[in-house]
């Protein structure tokens, strides 16, 4: 009897907690489908009389969200692909190749992970303005083409593949380059997926840097555009919530499909790092 009660209590607490997590999302979607007068009803209504799908169209056209969306896709794709490329090569060197200064270099990079990224903003802004890249894709992408966190995670995985496979490939006459791309990378697929997804999420949601390096409307990414939209939309909460929804949705879909990789990636990075 006591066991049943504690089991029920357990579920009640977990469900209440889950509701607390979900309510902001439900409230966002609910508001996004209301008419303006419905948003300010007291007590609040959860299900609008008629679902106002038109709010999504209105919000999308109220600001250049199409352009913001394209910018976000371009920046996220290029910076993720670039980071993967530079990190796979560097991780291979750290995991497999012999070179002078390997340990020192590794420790230096570990040390840089201690530095708050916000400190890098000012010098990077100066560098990129000297390069004439401010308010261009260059500024949005270039600083994010390398990530030591990704190198570190991939190195762990590369090191855990047995030496025999490497030597067998060597005996078969495969070069390091060929071994890396045809053997090691396919073998490390799940780690690579995990770091890719984490990169994509981080890049898609990043705000402070794109805010600082973009001036013109046409260069804004989605979070920056959404922030600017609040000033224009004022108190039209149904439009604001519709816009928030379409900024959030792509990552939620990605998350639902690739959940197991994300969680594996976080635990790997978190526990070893």
């Amino acid at each position, binding site marked *: 009897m006591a066991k049943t009660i504690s089991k029920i209590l357990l579920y009640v607490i*977990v469900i209440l*907690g*889950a509701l607390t*997590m979900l309510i*902001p*999302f439900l*409230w*966002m979607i609910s*508001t996004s489908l209301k008419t303006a007068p419905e*948003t*300010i009803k*007291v*007590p609040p209504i959860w299900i609008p009389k008629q679902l106002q799908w038109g709010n999504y169209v209105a919000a999308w056209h109220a600001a250049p969200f199409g352009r913001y969306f394209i910018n976000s896709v371009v920046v996220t794709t290029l910076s993720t692909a670039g980071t993967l*490329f530079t*990190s796979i*090569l*560097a991780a291979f*060197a750290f995991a497999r*190749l*012999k070179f002078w200064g390997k340990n020192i*270099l590794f420790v230096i*990079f570990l040390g*840089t992970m*201690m530095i*708050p*990224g*916000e*400190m*890098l903003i*000012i*010098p990077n*802004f100066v*560098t990129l303005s000297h390069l004439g890249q401010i308010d261009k894709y260059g500024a949005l992408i270039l600083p994010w*083409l*390398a990530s030591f966190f990704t190198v570190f995670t991939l190195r762990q995985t590369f090191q855990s593949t047995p*030496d025999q496979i490497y*030597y067998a490939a*060597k005996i078969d006459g495969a070069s390091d380059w060929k071994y890396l791309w045809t053997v090691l990378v396919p073998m490390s697929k799940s780690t690579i997926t995990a770091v890719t997804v984490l990169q994509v999420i981080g890049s*898609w949601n990043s*705000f*402070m840097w794109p805010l*600082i390096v973009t001036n013109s409307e046409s260069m804004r990414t*989605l*979070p920056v555009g959404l*922030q600017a939209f*609040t000033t224009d939309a004022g108190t039209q*909460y149904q439009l*604001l*919530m519709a816009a*928030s*929804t379409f*900024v*959030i949705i792509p*990552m*939620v879909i990605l*998350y639902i499909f690739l959940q197991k990789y994300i969680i594996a990636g*976080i*635990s790997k990075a*978190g*526990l070893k790092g």
Partner: protein
Amino acid sequence: MLNEKPSLKSSAIALLYLLPMLVISITFHIYPIISSFAMSLYTKYDFYTDKVGGLGFDNFVYLWNDPDFHLAVKNTLIFVIAVVPITVILSLVIALLLNQIKFLSGFFRTIYFLPFVTSTIAIAMVWNWIYHSDYGLMNYFLGWFGIHPIHWLTDPNYSLLALIIMSIWKNLGFNIILFLVGINNIDDGYYKAAEIDGANAFQRFWNVTLPLLSPITFLVSINGVIGSFKVFDEIFALFQGTPGPGKADLTIVYYLYQKFYTEYKYPVAAASGVVLFFLILLVTLVQLWYSRKHVHY
């Protein structure tokens, strides 16, 4: 082949593999670290000509005398001290509960983790609406308990609390995942042994789970402290580009942003970044020192 020493040839080949990452890292990560420490010592700096008048501690003196910076440090510390312990305790409790559940446990995990993948800006807009003093959900729920409407975002006495509540909500999922991994890694044998010794559920938690989870708890707190010290996006979106009513939500990074982006005082901004770095370092070292005594590896 295994114990081969590095040679000129092998080092040259490795350099080719490292090159793309090195070019980016040195330009955008390593050089800026040195540069921002240096910049914090610049006096009379002219951004347009990149000319430096001299070196000295003027910028740190400026920070020392600036009441806004004092406020920023104070707010940041309050934020860290409120957010980190509550997040750690709540996420540990939720992870322990989730671990007890079999039916729908995957579904619940998905929900708890959802805030982690969502854009801070987008979700802070939602919280801005939740905190609305007339039509927001927060005051509506509080009304059930007879609490009068609170001006969450316009009353300086409540706006930091509003930021803290939202941040805890946003950070929980990430920590829950780490705790769940830790709990699953605990060997069942310890629990069986404890049970044979007659330990009750609470004793098992206190003497087995908690000590064996201490490395994760340590990791989660370090992560939390570092992340919370750098809070910015949440403030910018929640208070629509202001540091809260009466600067009640001005934090160190927000201060850095203002000095850099709106006042063009680059060296002062760089100096505030240096202070941030040393504050984080100091707290991390204290945590390390504490963990040496209390964390069981």
